[in-house]
């Protein structure tokens, strides 16, 4: 079984202690008991049982959902925020008591619920207010809910059970209260706009159904809150009904949130599908499958290659683990205690660590295979590199030898031949000397010819000196059969590419002349899409085999060393076609 280890950002938090969560849960229950107690003691409360029920309905779900979220997503501040919201909203019940200090606190917190809701809804899902606009709206809501409440109470608003009355200005207090209610109402509506604006800015794949339901629930709560506050300001009829409906909806929000958490578990259904597909396809595109299972198209998959001590992509190219910021998260998958692969995904997926864990575990064996494949590719690249270096070194050495021959032995021998020629001029009257000189010169001429062939075989100097087109023209001219040569508009390219192309043509022509009994050959050389394409087609007997003759095999090595491809079609009796593609970028 694969082990998964999420690599979390620096701000990673330890999960809360279970004891703390238990205490919070018990405190929530206890606070409801207190609420019921206060309601029964009060005696003047309108519909006390319903009021207790409503207060519990808008607080307990927040606290309990918050506890679950905190436990499962210790990284997100949303859980603690919900718990806090539940308890803060409960403060307002203190106004049901006649104890002056507690009553004052209760009255001061009467409208806090409006600001707290805005805060919680806008802070979804991270628990933090992401944007400046959100922060401004929430701060204004707190100022309106508590700050203006303080002013109203100081003006002697509501009743005389609180301690804050400074001057008795009932009219002013009422006017101020209307301002407060309408301000909060407006802020709630702005909150709705912000919610939708942020939602629509998310990439499509992140706008999933559970989150969509949650956003709808938040929006409805805020709209109804705005309606409730407006109704309160204008003392519209049906205030109690609106309050009932608003609280009912607002209490649903944490339930929708819990449903979203549950959906993350349901998404593990995708794990089953992943396993089926992994079994069906022996060589899957693992990244694609994982991306689908995790519903994150941006997912990338990298492997740990222990032999290289580095991370690599699926093709074996070395790469680094990405920075943990920039909205990316990394989960390292381990097999038998050793790291095998890493999944790099969008940070929002970090909200569902169980899913990532389940998917990584399901893909365990396939990931191990993928890693072996990446390692194989890396080795192939290494091999490719060393072959390229070997051929390059060989080519440099051959070029050096040719140059030494050209500048050394060949020049000296030509100078010697010239000397003999001059001697022959002077010895015109001496037939015996003439004869010996003549034989010496013919020996020398033969040596020069042989030396020329050797030098030429070492390195085609004309290619580096004058380009492929000129070199091929000379090559083709020396062939005993008709050759159709096309090199139109061929630019000068890197020397190793030109030399390799030269050898492809030269070897193919040699093959056509020696083995294929060809009478007509066409040679086409051109550049297409950063590659030089060389194609030699003859009308000979076919049956050429790159594994048999060393010439064609050596050619394939030379071409592949440059990351190119050599293809030979040679059906018996149907001629031979050699095609090389040489990258020249």
């Amino acid at each position, binding site marked *: 079984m694969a082990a998964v280890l999420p690599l979390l950002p620096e701000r990673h938090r330890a999960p809360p202690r279970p004891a703390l969560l238990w205490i919070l849960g018990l405190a929530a229950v206890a606070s409801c008991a207190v609420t019921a107690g206060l309601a029964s003691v009060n005696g003047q409360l309108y519909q006390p049982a319903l009021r207790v029920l409503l207060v519990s309905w808008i607080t307990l779900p927040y606290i309990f959902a918050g506890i679950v979220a905190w436990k499962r997503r210790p990284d997100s501040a949303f859980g603690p925020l919900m718990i806090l919201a539940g308890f803060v909203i409960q403060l307002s019940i203190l106004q049901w008591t006649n104890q002056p200090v507690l009553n004052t606190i209760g009255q001061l917190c009467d409208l806090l619920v409006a600001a707290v809701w805005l805060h919680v809804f806008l802070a979804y899902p991270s628990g933090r207010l992401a944007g400046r606009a959100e922060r401004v709206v929430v701060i204004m809501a707190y100022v309106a809910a508590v700050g203006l409440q303080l002013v109203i109470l100081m003006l002697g608003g509501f009743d005389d059970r609180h301690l804050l009355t400074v001057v008795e200005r009932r009219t002013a207090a009422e006017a101020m209260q209307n301002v407060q209610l309408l301000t909060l109402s407006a802020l709630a509506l702005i909150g709705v706009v912000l919610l939708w604006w942020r939602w629509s800015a998310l990439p499509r794949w992140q706008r999933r159904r559970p989150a969509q339901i949650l956003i709808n629930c938040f929006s409805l709560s805020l709209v109804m809150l705005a309606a409730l506050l407006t109704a309160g300001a204008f003392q519209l009829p049906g205030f109690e009904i609106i309050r009932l409906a608003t609280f009912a909806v607002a209490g649903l929000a944490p339930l929708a949130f819990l449903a979203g958490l549950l959906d993350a578990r349901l998404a593990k259904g995708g794990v089953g599908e992943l396993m089926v597909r992994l079994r069906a396809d022996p060589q899957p595109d693992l990244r694609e499958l994982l991306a689908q299972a995790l519903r994150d198209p941006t997912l990338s998959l990298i492997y740990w290659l222990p032999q290289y001590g580095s991370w690599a992509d699926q093709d074996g190219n070395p790469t680094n683990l990405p920075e943990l910021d920039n909205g990316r998260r990394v989960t390292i998958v381990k097999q038998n205690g050793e790291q095998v692969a890493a999944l790099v995904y969008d940070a929002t997926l970090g909200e569902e660590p169980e899913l990532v864990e389940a998917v990584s575990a399901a893909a365990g064996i396939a990931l191990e295979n993928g890693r072996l494949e990446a390692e194989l590719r890396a080795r192939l690249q290494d091999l490719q590199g060393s072959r390229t270096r070997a051929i390059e070194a060989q080519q440099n050495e051959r070029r050096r030898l040719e140059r030494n021959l*050209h500048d050394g032995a060949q020049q000296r021998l030509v100078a010697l031949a010239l000397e003999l020629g001059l001697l022959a*001029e002077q010895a015109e009257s001496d037939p015996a000397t003439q004869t010996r000189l003549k034989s010496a010169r013919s020996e020398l001429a033969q040596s020069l010819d042989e030396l020329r062939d050797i030098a030429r075989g070492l390195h085609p100097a*004309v290619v580096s*000196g*004058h380009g492929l087109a000129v070199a091929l023209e000379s090559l083709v001219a*020396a*062939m005993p059969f008709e050759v159709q040569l096309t090199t139109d508009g061929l630019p000068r390219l890197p020397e190793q590419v030109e030399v390799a192309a030269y050898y492809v043509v030269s070897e193919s022509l040699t093959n056509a002349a020696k083995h294929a009994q060809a009478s007509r050959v066409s040679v086409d050389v051109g550049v297409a899409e950063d590659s030089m394409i060389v194609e030699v087609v003859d009308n000979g007997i076919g049956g050429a085999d790159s594994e048999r003759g060393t010439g064609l095999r050596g050619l394939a090595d030379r071409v592949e060393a440059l990351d190119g491809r050599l293809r030979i079609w040679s059906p018996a009796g149907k001629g031979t076609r050699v095609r090389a593609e040489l990258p020249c970028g």
Partner: protein
Amino acid sequence: MRVAIAEDSVLLREGVAQLLTDAHIEVTARCGTADELLACIVHDPPDAVIVDIRLPPTHTDEGMRAALTIRQQYPDVGVLVLSQYVEVGLAMQLLADSAEGVGYLLKDRVSEVKEFIAALRRVADGGSALDPTIVSTMLKRHRSSDPLDSLTPREREVLELMATGASNAGIADSMVITQRAAEKYVSTIFTKLGIPATGSESRRVLAVLLFLRS
């Protein structure tokens, strides 16, 4: 006749200079690089230059480029290119526009003093001198329905000589025939190959080369 030499091997450069001096040809400049040669020509244009195809600094195509430059800017100066290898492709490049006043020979040819001097004089006089290996290489190719097949061995010999730039008199000398006989061979060859007869000897070099290449 006045000749400038560009050859980076001192041994060979001095050898060729000696050869020319012995033949009473004035050597106006002995250069080691293509740039030196071009500078010499600006100051004192000779009748012909002898250029090694591979010259410093890169020993790739400096000599060739100098030769082409001189052909373009000093049409009156004959250019004789020497090389360790002769390349049909380069011959075509050198003779692209005309075969007048140009030669392209294997370096070894300097040892055949008389022929070399003759070739040099031809080039200086506006004629041509093409290494025999170029022509023989091109003649080796077998074609289907080849008009060359209709030539007699003697006519092929004349064709080869003609393609190297030899004059009718030169052909007559080499083959030990009369100049009239040589002229007759030439006109028969042109008829058989379907090449329109051209006046000058250098023009017929080009015509034969183009025929052989096609």
